[in-house]
């Protein structure tokens, strides 16, 4: 990892991601699976969640910075064989996070993090903008309408009920679909992720 760190810790400000570099990155992350960019999107989502769990102010930007550095390395080296793509991404992400921490300590990002933290500590329930809720619900209706009927019923039934009732519902649903509870959880989670992305895009459009 020390060998790696020398090559990826310092960002090159004059380097920008080209179309060719992006294609190379997508192909490398895909590892011949033929996912047509699916692996790239999955990795980006995981990186965003990683930086978010680290309470970074702008997880999306840090995720993109990580992927840019990996793409640059690929451009420069032609191939990365020392690590699997996922692990290499993690190593780079960790450097990016540490840089972010150092910058925060210097005060560049500190004010932003503090502002964000104080906002986070405010009572969440106070944020009850009726218009926003209404808009969110409308977006949800629209996005649910785009789902296939089976996915729509699956996701609806999966999240109904509380505690034991919910568990019983899920067990019955899994039996109906002929899959295990674990497989049902994965399926429901994927549908939910897709739905959440759709709702976020819809809400951003206003």
């Amino acid at each position: 990892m020390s060998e790696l760190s020398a090559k990826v810790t310092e960002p090159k400000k004059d380097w920008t991601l080209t179309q060719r570099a992006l294609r190379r990155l997508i192909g490398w992350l895909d590892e011949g699976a033929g996912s047509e960019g699916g692996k790239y999107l999955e990795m980006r989502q995981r990186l965003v969640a990683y930086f978010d769990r680290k309470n970074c102010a702008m997880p999306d930007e840090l995720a993109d910075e990580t992927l840019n550095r990996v793409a640059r390395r690929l451009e420069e080296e032609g191939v990365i064989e020392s690590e699997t793509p996922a692990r290499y991404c993690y190593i780079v992400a960790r450097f990016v996070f540490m840089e972010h921490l150092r910058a925060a300590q210097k005060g560049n990002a500190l004010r932003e993090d503090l502002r964000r933290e104080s906002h986070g500590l405010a009572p969440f329930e106070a944020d009850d903008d009726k218009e926003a809720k209404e808009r969110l619900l409308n977006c949800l209706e629209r996005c649910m309408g785009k789902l296939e009927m089976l996915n729509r019923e699956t996701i609806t039934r999966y999240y109904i009920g509380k505690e034991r009732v919910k568990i019983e519902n899920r067990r019955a649903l899994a039996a109906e679909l002929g899959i295990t509870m674990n497989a049902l959880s994965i399926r429901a989670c994927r549908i939910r992720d897709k739905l959440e992305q759709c709702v976020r895009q819809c809400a951003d459009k206003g």
Partner: protein
Amino acid sequence: MSKETHNDQTLQRYLLGALPDSEAERLDELGLTDDEFAEALRIAESDLIDAYVQNELSGTVLDQFKTYYLASPLRREKVKFAQAFQVFALKEASVQTAGLTGKTARVRKGAGWFSAVSDFFAPRLALQWGAALAALALVIAGSWLVFDNVRLRQEMSQVQARREVLARRELELQKQLETQRANNTQTEQELARVRQEQERLGQELKQTPAGAKSSREGSIVSLILAPPLRGASQVPTISIKPGSSQVAAQLQLEATDYSAYRVALIDPAGNQTLWRSGSLKPTVKGERKSLAASFRADLLKPRHYLLTVTGISGGTSEIVGNYPFRVVK
């Protein structure tokens, strides 16, 4: 990857920032490099958010959720989404319930959480529930009306059928009554004729000498005539002895298609009716059917005669057979 690394409790503590740094770093790496772990982490996060939305978190976990998890705008968005999604899921379930899909119990049990998070949405859902119940009531009312309509139609059809049967019965009875009246008239006429005959015979009896009367009373000639066969050349012959007063004729019938018959004695030479019976009922003994008629012997002379049988039905009559015979003295 060992499952011990991501049991539910560990994942929950990781998501709430409550794990030691070294352990958290290990899971950070797994979150990026291990597909199975990444999936489990997402599910655990969804469950954690849902538990918060449904007021199932308490104590330290609830505090950590509020102070750590909700510190991120991105995660707050996830919670908002979950709130909206749960409301939407309940609404979907209520629609399915109105559609009688048998999910009523699940929806009712989920309503506890719903009341806690959906103050704003309550009027909207109440309206939807109301609409669903109204639709259900309409369906039930409509079904009852259709059912009642069918029942009334069936009852009307049955009444109509009974009326038709009664009308037919009335017609039959009317016909029978008319026939009865006609028979009564014939019977009355026949009675009158019999009385006239009795009166005439009484007069004759008074005018006849006593010796002659006794000899007539003691001499009856019987005559049995079979149905005339086509082409038959043999004519039955009877011998009337002096002193014979009555001829008792028994006429065999081929069929008894009529309830009553009349017999007439015809003199073919002059085509003259010498005697006519009243209404006679046929006698049936086994397969043999016959008519019994009697007339005075002095009406006969040595020559050919004809007994003609007429069937009577209602107001009509028809000749059903001619029985020729020859008289010798």
